[in-house]
């Protein structure tokens, strides 16, 4: 693999991590959705690049899914849900932006360290890609646990899943990648519908999970 392709792939993966950080930084819901769209876009690009680099045409399908489904449909759907549900637009955070950023740094560092222990004969592209993917996954999780607002949690989950797809495509010649990305898209669709279901049931005036918790079967 030529030096250039490697650098491009590297750059794209790195920018995915960067976008994740942007997501952590956001505190407005719409902005978050837009950033997520960007996230998906970058993912689509890097997948496409991998398809080109490994000349594995089936990966283009994955890229297309990422582009159409994640970068366009999902954000719009969420956007409309927010409007329909009248969810208040700002995101309640558990941890402030600054600390969240610091933790995120720590996680990225952790991801790197863990990956560096992997012996070098696993080819460098894979190593780097995995490191970035792991960081994206961890950042997504971090986002899920530091946001109270369900939509933002969903966004966190989706970016986590982007990290997975990145890893999957980075793994050279891995079979079933398309199937897996399809399966994940279904999962995400389910989640979105799930939010929507609650709305339809006219039970919860907000999707804030703390309100959900008040409906627990057992009280103390």
């Amino acid at each position, binding site marked *: 693999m030529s030096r250039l392709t490697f650098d491009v792939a590297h750059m794209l993966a790195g920018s995915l991590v960067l976008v994740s950080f942007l997501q952590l930084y956001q505190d407005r819901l719409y902005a978050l959705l837009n950033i997520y769209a960007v996230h998906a876009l970058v993912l689509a690009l890097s997948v496409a690049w991998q398809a080109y680099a490994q000349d594995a045409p089936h990966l283009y399908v994955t890229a297309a899914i990422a582009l159409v489904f994640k970068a366009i449909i999902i954000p719009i759907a969420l956007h409309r849900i927010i409007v329909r549900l009248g969810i208040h637009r700002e995101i309640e955070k558990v941890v402030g932006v600054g600390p969240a950023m610091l933790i995120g740094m720590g996680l990225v560092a952790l991801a790197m360290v863990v990956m560096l222990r992997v012996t070098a004969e696993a080819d460098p592209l894979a190593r780097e890609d995995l490191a970035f993917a792991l960081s994206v996954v961890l950042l997504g999780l971090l986002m899920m646990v530091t946001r109270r607002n369900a939509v933002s949690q969903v966004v966190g989950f989706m970016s986590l899943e982007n990290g997975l797809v990145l890893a999957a495509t980075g793994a050279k010649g891995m079979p079933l990648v398309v199937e897996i990305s399809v399966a994940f898209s279904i999962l995400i669709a389910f*989640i979105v519908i799930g939010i929507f279901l609650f709305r339809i049931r006219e039970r919860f005036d907000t999707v804030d999970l703390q309100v959900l918790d008040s409906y627990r079967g057992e009280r103390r």
Partner: protein
Amino acid sequence: MTFDPVIAVLLIPAGAAMLLAALPGYRLTARINVLAALASFIVAFSLFFHRPGQGPYFHVDDLNNVFIVLTTFVGFTTSVFSASYIGHELEIGRLTPVFLRFYHAMYQVLMFAMNLALVANNIGLMWVAIELATLTTVLMVGIYRTHEALEAAWKYFILGSVGIALALFGTILVYMAARPVMGEGADAMVWTSLVVRAAEFDPALLNLAFVFLLLGYGTKVGLAPLHAWLPDAHAEGPTPISAVLSGLLLNVALYALLRFKMLLAVNPAALAPGPLLVTMGLISLVFAAFMLYRRRDIKRMFAYSSIEHMGIIAFAFGMGGPLANFAGLLHMTMHSLTKSAIFFAVGHIAQVKGTQQIAEMGGLTQTNPVLGWGLVLGVIAIAGMPPLGIFASEFLVVSSTFARAPWLAIILVFGLLVGLAALFLRLNTVAFGEPRGKSGETHASYAPMFAHLALVLLAGVYMPPALVGWFQNVAKLLG
């Protein structure tokens, strides 16, 4: 091609699912459901006598053979139970016919997914199957559309999806580890070929992979602290689903974990997964044992007891060695039989009493002797008392551990005792004493419950040598 039971085990549920999705009418669909489950059980049973050769996607070996038969069997008995249970739900109007159709279809899809996960030889395929199983169960947990049900489903869904995601990452890592050795392409995800060459894999990647797999599939197994979805999902879903969850789905997830443990067991450089499993197992056991005390909802209580037993099993596999591994496998089998039997009893009890609150049940052995004594027998079994099967496995776990790691064994015994005390504390008030709460009538089907208990009893007294042989082979492989 000749008749291949593996394909049949997959096709029957899939076909039945489509059929059931199309058909209206409760009685008919319930019957078809039972028939399909019975058919796939019979087909699976034939695997005892001749096994098809392994392919790139499916294979049957000593490990999953027993579990396929077990799954189809419990699936069959549960469908029988659910026929009567759901009928009652329909009468009291907790379910509408539309949801019922959906329910039966989903039931078969779930069966399909679990069978697929069991026979899959490709770790990617296995992952897909388990995700499918998760989604279907999420839908069925939420089927009552109450606040609690929806919330339980949502919780299950979020946690389950995160778990799934982690598991996928682990799977990818395994592939990455395998690729340099086995070359690119599907072969690097075929378990049977992986386990052959696993010794040459990169240990660091394997370790990392196992961490993710442990957390991912561990969430499905319900090991503490990843257990949060389990009690609510059990408590709020329809009881047949609780039975299938506790009895089968947890097993399937654990089965997946075992497959990867085998990989690590082969690789000398990789860090032994034992300590991780032992720690999580003990945490789950003791934690769940204490959680049993404050439970007011009977189904949630037995859900915690499932966590407890998953902890025991994880502990057993973590300890390793022929005896402990054998005990773990035995315990998986016995637990799924017993726990589903208990849920059969509990389901009917909840219908009779019209509630799941323990405080409103009492003196069952007097008002409904069969149900009451069935529950007593089930609790005795689940508490690990002879002559029932779980005692055998606990006997092996404890005794084989104490000689090697006394302190671990003492913690284990402590947890067992605390859990047992809690279970009997509740059993006393539910099964004995002055009758409490209202007692409606139900056209219960006792056959499944007692069939399971009879099997457990049989295993406690006499184990068929063939089964023992397979388990011992697997125990060797598990290291």
